[in-house]
């Protein structure tokens, strides 16, 4: 592959997270380089989503730190994370179900809207122009994700595969530096998985967005990611290119089990 992978943009250092006595993550470190597609894999309950939630500021790890673009944080705050340019999608869709596709994706522009509430309420020219600009940007995303036909449909009425796209669209509307995808292909059929893989690759390619993705489908992971972190029972057991990880004996035993 000829794409340019840059410096480390996101660096996770010795993160430990526990809920009461249950250790969800133990001393996890890994980094993500600019423009790469980084996968986090592992069996159920390995701590993949917990890891994402630490980066996203939903959980506060008891130990360790996370650096983003050179700034180090002991805990991330959801709002701050979003304004620094980290967007995410959700494993169990968290869309605004009553709102139309367009409105859902428009909410992703929220942080970029400058006009204040009074200007919006009175529909002043500047606020209107701004709204139109954002709308144009959102239309591009809708074209890109090929959901033009469903613009005005309330997302609650869309089939699952399309809802996943809207979720992705909302995250894209933030123009993120880093995109966190929590099982973007879970519950999809083969065709939908192929579409989604194509979108992820295109986003990475065309916009240079760094992607961190959790995925269960090994085929997809091995195909599209540049490097893979493997977690098992909250510990890191492998880290490297898809080929390195595939031949790592610890990873094989975690997935297939070993004869003891």
């Amino acid at each position: 592959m000829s794409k340019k992978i840059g410096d480390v943009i996101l660096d996770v250092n010795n993160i430990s997270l526990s809920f009461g006595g249950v250790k969800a993550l133990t001393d996890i470190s890994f980094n993500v380089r600019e423009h790469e597609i980084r996968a986090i894999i592992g069996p159920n309950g390995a701590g993949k989503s917990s890891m994402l939630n630490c980066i996203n500021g939903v959980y506060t790890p008891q130990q360790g730190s996370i650096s983003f673009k050179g700034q180090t944080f002991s805990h991330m705050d959801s709002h701050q994370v979003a304004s620094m340019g980290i967007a995410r999608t959700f494993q169990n869709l968290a869309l605004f179900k009553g709102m139309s596709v367009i409105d859902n994706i428009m909410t992703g522009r929220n942080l970029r809207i400058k006009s204040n509430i009074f200007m919006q309420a009175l529909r002043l020219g500047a606020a209107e122009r701004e709204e139109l600009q954002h709308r144009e940007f959102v239309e591009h995303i809708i074209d890109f994700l090929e959901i033009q036909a469903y613009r005005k449909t309330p997302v609650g009425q869309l089939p699952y595969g399309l809802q996943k796209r809207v979720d992705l669209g909302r995250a894209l509307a933030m123009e993120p530096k880093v995109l966190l995808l929590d099982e973007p292909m879970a519950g999809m059929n083969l065709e939908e998985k192929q579409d989604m893989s194509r979108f992820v690759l295109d986003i990475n390619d065309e916009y240079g967005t760094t992607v961190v993705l959790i995925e269960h489908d090994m085929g997809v992971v091995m195909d599209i990611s540049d490097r893979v972190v493997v977690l098992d029972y909250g510990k890191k057991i492998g880290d490297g290119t898809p080929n390195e990880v595939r031949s790592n004996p610890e990873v094989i035993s975690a997935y297939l089990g070993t004869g003891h």
Partner: protein
Amino acid sequence: MAFFLETLLGGLMAGMLYSLVALGFVLIFKASGVFNFAQGAMVLFAALAMARFAEWIPQWTGIDSKLLANLLAFVLASAIMWAVAWLIEYLALRHLVNQEGTTLLMATLGISYFLDGLGQSLFGSNIYKIDIGMPKEPIMVFEGWLEGGMLINKEDLYAAMIAAVLVAGLTLFFQKTATGRALRAVADDHQAAQSIGIPLNRIWVIVWTVAGVVALVAGMIWGSKLGVQFSLTTVALRALPVVILGGLTSVPGAIIGGLIIGVGEKLSEVFLGPYVGGGIEIWFAYVLALVFLLFRPQGLFGEKIIDRV
């Protein structure tokens, strides 16, 4: 016929006011999942502020125009409702994020007693007048069409118009502005809203302020009809059946629920009253709410309650 229409219309007007109070409940419930027991206290608080400012402003500034004084009083009272919203968020809600609904309900119960007390110690506890210049005299309409014509209270007509404008304004604000979109987003899913950088705290202040201004308008209209007094808080109890009927999450539901209850109360009082001895108006709404709770707990327009087991 004319008498029936008059009763119907009277019911619609009364219902409009129930709708306004119910609207306050719905706004806050939608955006934060809190059943705000303090809505009634907010109505009293806002109405007291408005009544007293309208009285004080001419004294402080020597403004003669009643319209100007009322306008200033309205703006000041709105500002106070904003301050109240900010304090409630800062002192209570922010610390209760992700708590059980019951905990939040209890918190608003506390807030309601606090506001009752604070309002009366700041603004006094007598009965005050709000005089926004609403005409009191009734008018006759449809004289050519109906025998004897129809008697309409002009005041009711104005009140209904104010309420309609408010509801239209709110709908536009929610559907057509970026902030409105953010509000709807928070109402749908807190976590997702946070992930795209919508600040929950600020949204809650906005919602409680909007609910406060709605309370102010409701309090102003009731106050100008009946005077501002402690019994205004019980108006909130009248609005409770309205939200059960209309659905806790539906703005149109609050409006239509209010109208149904207003009309139902008046019609049943007038036409059934003679047979069962009257007083139906007092309990009609609650019985209707009870029936709804039994057969359609989500209300007419509310989201169906599905519990995952």
